């Protein structure tokens, strides 16, 4: 059930996600870019708002957390850095996945609530680590106060809580836990003001399925009745349930940030009370039971237990211990350690803490980490230390590490350390080495007070902010202003295609009018009539062309549609490969037909990946070659006459023709002889041969030898061309030229062997009439010289295996064509007019016939075959 509203939300949300992702990348390069942060914030805010209309609470929740974080960034309370951008991008990716899921099934996956909660908590943690004042800190503090175990995976039940739960409920929970089910403790601390938002905590927690016991307790001692505010919730609830975690999260999905869920060990549920008793019967039991247990005779143990239970008074402590023992024994596979503890309890009259058996894994928090922020800060600093150590010197990374460390120390109020670290940064930047910084960081981690004098050899301290700005290269690239204008009509593509086809038919029928005019003149001898028809034709022709132009405009998309995915891709790949790349986009507004734009995505991806993998050198290598460590990739689009040209430029190492030659020979793409004949440019073109690859190993990026081959075939299929130019050591430029639109093809009609054929105009270089005597034979091939170039000739009628009709004319009509990268002449009988046609591919039994690109209708109703010269020549 996809509602129209949802159908509209999905593409909109995708668009907004794209906007936010590219905005975030901009922010990463230039953290003070206000336009970018506002753009991201607006987009995320809109997603949050619209998502509220649907049953997608998890999505809203996650986006909300991201929005809060961005709000802080916007108000300058938080500095953005790579780690933060990573987190936000991951969140957006998750949202993107959920959007896909919404589109497929109109619902989020079952685990969405939990995932959203965990991711949102991580985001909020960032918020907290920054200013130390987490929204719900009091709640967590209250929870911790009552129960020293860390939340998250509490595995021990606090004794106070256990004592309040009714014993039978505990026993029931114990029974289920022993049978292998996981019993969870849900602790719920409702927000004090929750009544005003319509939350009824009691009602909410009752929604959790499989509830075993509920405990309610006052969070604070009750105020005197006179001062009591009945609308402030002062209750904490705790629930034992046998429901699995996702079901709990689902039931409590509106209150996920107020609850903790933790599995409980069976041992912790045991709660025995009653009168003490003594007597030989217990000692006997103890001896017998221990024996049975040691021998593994559980059935005998069961009998002994039930026999004793039937005799002992139900109020006795030891009798109750037997109840628990019986419950533990009733499980399919009883836990021996637990049994032993219970047998001992029944025998001795008191319950000892379970020994090592089921592992009392109370994860003791590190003693010094009383403040959770300390712990977090420590882990953040440690990870930055690792990152630095791993990556080595790199100005940009250094800047982002500087921001993070500065923020962390600031939030902890450790100003002295912060100043020292900053000085160390300066030193590191001067020295182009991470060593001073690493030592300063380790010192902070070790908790030693830092002396600025050691870490910073005579360097003035600059605020981390200024330093970060200095290190980040001024973010290049202009941004088109008018991208916000999304006031558009969304129409199904099929409707546009239909309109397109109809206009195509109109164009074809319009072409019939000149024939009609000719008939009027020739057959009916009415010159007047013929002239009028021609006048009308001119009007219809103009209108048809305008309509065609208009519908083309509708189908036009800006290349930014494909360009927009590159900043993210390049960033991720660059991080993976350890290269520094500055991606610049130019001419994103250049528009081309939707089909072209969509088909261009993959080829461009291959080219950019190739540049990243093979073209761009590692930072050290670049520095050694005297280039800046940060490489540059430029994606540039522009319109040139009837085609759109897209260029991918990099300033990497360029293509080495010699290396290409040898690689081509080893891979068996060409032979030695052929390789020697090739010019450098021709050698470079070898990268388009199928099976060619210079990479010694196949990486997950490229090297399979299919990449550039795919580029060439895709682009040529679209009627475009690819050229590569490269200067060794300076970089490579790949140029794709594609027609603006594919719907209408311009052809020239030619005559051969008495029939008419069409030749696509974009293949024709020129038309010439060559006098017979200038056609020379070289061996068996006919050639002629055109402007000092030898052009091989072939006869169309021969190529099509048609009978030749000698015409005895003084000169031959030659169509000079550009085919497969070379020129060739085609001798035909006569040239006819040019025409715009809608090309229909050969269908049905004709599909397999080579040499033809398709068919089209002529104005007088005849079918015209359009030749595919690539296959013919």
């Amino acid at each position, binding site marked *: 059930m996809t509602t129209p509203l949802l159908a509209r939300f999905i593409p909109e949300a995708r668009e907004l996600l794209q906007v936010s992702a590219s905005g975030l990348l901009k922010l990463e390069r230039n953290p003070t870019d206000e336009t970018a942060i506002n753009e991201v914030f607006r987009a995320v805010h809109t997603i949050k708002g619209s998502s509220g209309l649907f049953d997608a609470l998890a999505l809203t929740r996650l986006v909300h957390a991201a929005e809060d974080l961005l709000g802080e960034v916007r108000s300058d309370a938080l500095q953005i850095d790579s780690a933060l951008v990573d987190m936000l991008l991951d969140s957006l990716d998750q949202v993107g996945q959920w959007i896909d899921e919404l589109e497929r099934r109109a619902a989020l996956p079952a685990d969405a609530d939990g995932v959203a909660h965990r991711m949102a908590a991580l985001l909020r943690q960032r918020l907290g680590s920054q200013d130390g004042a987490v929204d719900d800190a009091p709640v967590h503090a209250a929870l911790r106060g009552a129960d020293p175990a860390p939340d998250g995976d509490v595995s021990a039940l606090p004794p106070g809580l256990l004592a309040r739960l009714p014993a039978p409920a505990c026993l029931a929970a114990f029974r289920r836990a022993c049978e292998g089910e996981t019993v969870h403790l849900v602790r719920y601390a409702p927000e004090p003001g929750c009544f005003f938002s319509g939350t009824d905590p*009691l009602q909410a927690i009752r929604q959790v399925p499989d509830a075993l016991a509920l405990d309610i307790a006052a969070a604070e001692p009750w105020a005197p009745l006179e001062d009591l505010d*009945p*609308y402030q919730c002062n209750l904490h609830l705790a629930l034992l349930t046998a429901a699995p975690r996702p079901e709990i999260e689902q039931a409590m999905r509106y209150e996920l940030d107020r609850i903790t869920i933790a599995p409980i060990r069976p041992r912790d549920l045991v709660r025995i009370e009653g009168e003490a008793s003594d007597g030989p019967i217990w000692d006997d039991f103890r001896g017998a039971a221990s024996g049975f247990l040691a021998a593994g005779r559980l059935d005998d143990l069961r009998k002994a237990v039930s026999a004793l239970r039937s005799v002992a008074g139900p109020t006795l402590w030891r009798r109750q211990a037997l109840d628990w023992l019986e419950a533990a024994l009733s499980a399919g596979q009883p836990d021996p350690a637990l049994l032993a503890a219970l047998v001992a309890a029944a025998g001795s009259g008191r319950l000892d803490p379970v020994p090592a058996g089921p592992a009392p894994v109370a994860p003791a928090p590190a003693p010094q980490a009383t403040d959770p922020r300390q712990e977090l800060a420590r882990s953040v600093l440690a990870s930055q230390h690792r990152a630095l150590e791993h990556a080595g010197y790199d100005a940009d990374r250094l800047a982002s590490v500087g921001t993070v460390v500065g923020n962390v120390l600031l939030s902890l109020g450790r100003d002295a350390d912060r100043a020292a670290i900053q000085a160390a940064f300066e030193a590191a930047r001067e020295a182009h080495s991470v060593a001073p910084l690493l030592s300063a960081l380790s010192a902070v981690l070790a908790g030693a007070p830092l002396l600025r004098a050691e870490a910073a050899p005579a360097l003035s301290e600059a605020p981390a902010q200024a330093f970060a700005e200095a290190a980040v290269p001024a973010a290049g690239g202009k941004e088109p202003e008018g991208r916000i204008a999304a006031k558009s009509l969304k129409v199904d593509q099929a409707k546009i295609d239909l309109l397109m086809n109809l206009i195509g038919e109109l164009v074809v029928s319009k072409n019939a009018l000149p024939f009609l005019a000719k008939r009027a003149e020739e057959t009916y001898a009415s010159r007047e009539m013929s002239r009028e028809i021609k006048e009308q034709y001119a009007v219809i022709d103009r209108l048809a062309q305008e309509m065609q132009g208009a519908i083309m405009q509708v189908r036009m998309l800006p290349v930014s549609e494909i360009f927009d995915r590159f900043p993210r891709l390049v960033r991720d790949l660059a991080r993976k490969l350890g290269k520094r790349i500055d991606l610049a986009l130019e001419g994103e507004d250049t528009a081309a037909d939707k089909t072209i734009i969509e088909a261009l995505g993959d080829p461009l991806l291959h080219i950019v990946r190739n540049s990243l993998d093979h073209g761009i050198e590692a930072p050290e290598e670049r520095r050694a070659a005297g280039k800046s460590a940060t490489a540059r990739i430029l994606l540039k689009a522009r319109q040139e006459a009837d085609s759109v040209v897209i260029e991918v430029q990099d300033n990497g190492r360029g293509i080495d023709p010699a290396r290409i030659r040898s690689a081509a020979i080893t891979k068996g793409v060409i032979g030695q002889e052929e390789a020697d004949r090739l010019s450098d440019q021709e050698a470079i073109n070898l990268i388009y041969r199928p099976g060619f690859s210079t990479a010694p190993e196949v990486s997950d990026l490229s090297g399979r030898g299919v990449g550039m081959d795919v580029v060439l075939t895709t682009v040529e299929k679209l009627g475009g061309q690819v050229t590569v130019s490269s200067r060794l050591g300076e970089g490579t430029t790949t140029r794709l030229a594609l027609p603006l639109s594919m719907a209408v093809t311009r052809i020239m009609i030619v005559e051969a062997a008495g029939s008419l054929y069409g030749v696509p105009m974009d293949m024709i270089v020129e038309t010439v009439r060559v006098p017979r005597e200038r056609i020379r034979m070289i061996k068996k091939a006919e050639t002629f010289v055109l402007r000092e170039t030898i052009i091989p000739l072939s006869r169309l009628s021969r190529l099509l295996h048609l009978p030749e009709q000698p015409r005895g004319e003084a000169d031959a009509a030659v169509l000079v064509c550009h085919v497969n990268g070379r020129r060739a002449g085609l001798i035909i009988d006569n040239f006819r007019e040019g025409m715009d046609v809608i090309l229909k591919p050969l269908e049905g039994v004709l599909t397999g016939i080579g040499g033809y690109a398709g068919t089209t209708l002529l104005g007088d109703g005849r079918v015209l075959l359009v030749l595919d010269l690539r296959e013919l020549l």
Partner: protein
Amino acid sequence: MAIRIVRKTIHLEGHCTVEEALPLLETLRRPGAHKVVLTKCEGLHTAILQVLAAARPAAITPPADPALAGLVMPFLETSGAAA
């Protein structure tokens, strides 16, 4: 109305909503020993529950519905015992 007051005895009947917490509190604030009868109560909002827990009336008759009684009575009894 879910609250019905007969002298010092407060009857909570049907589903008691959050709006009734304040009238209930005001009644309980009056001096004297109050009795609360939940026998016909079918469900009560958390706000009502905490007013009952905070006010510690002299006596509470449990709801007839065993599920509801099992839910609220242990808490109300402990609160009363603490008084």
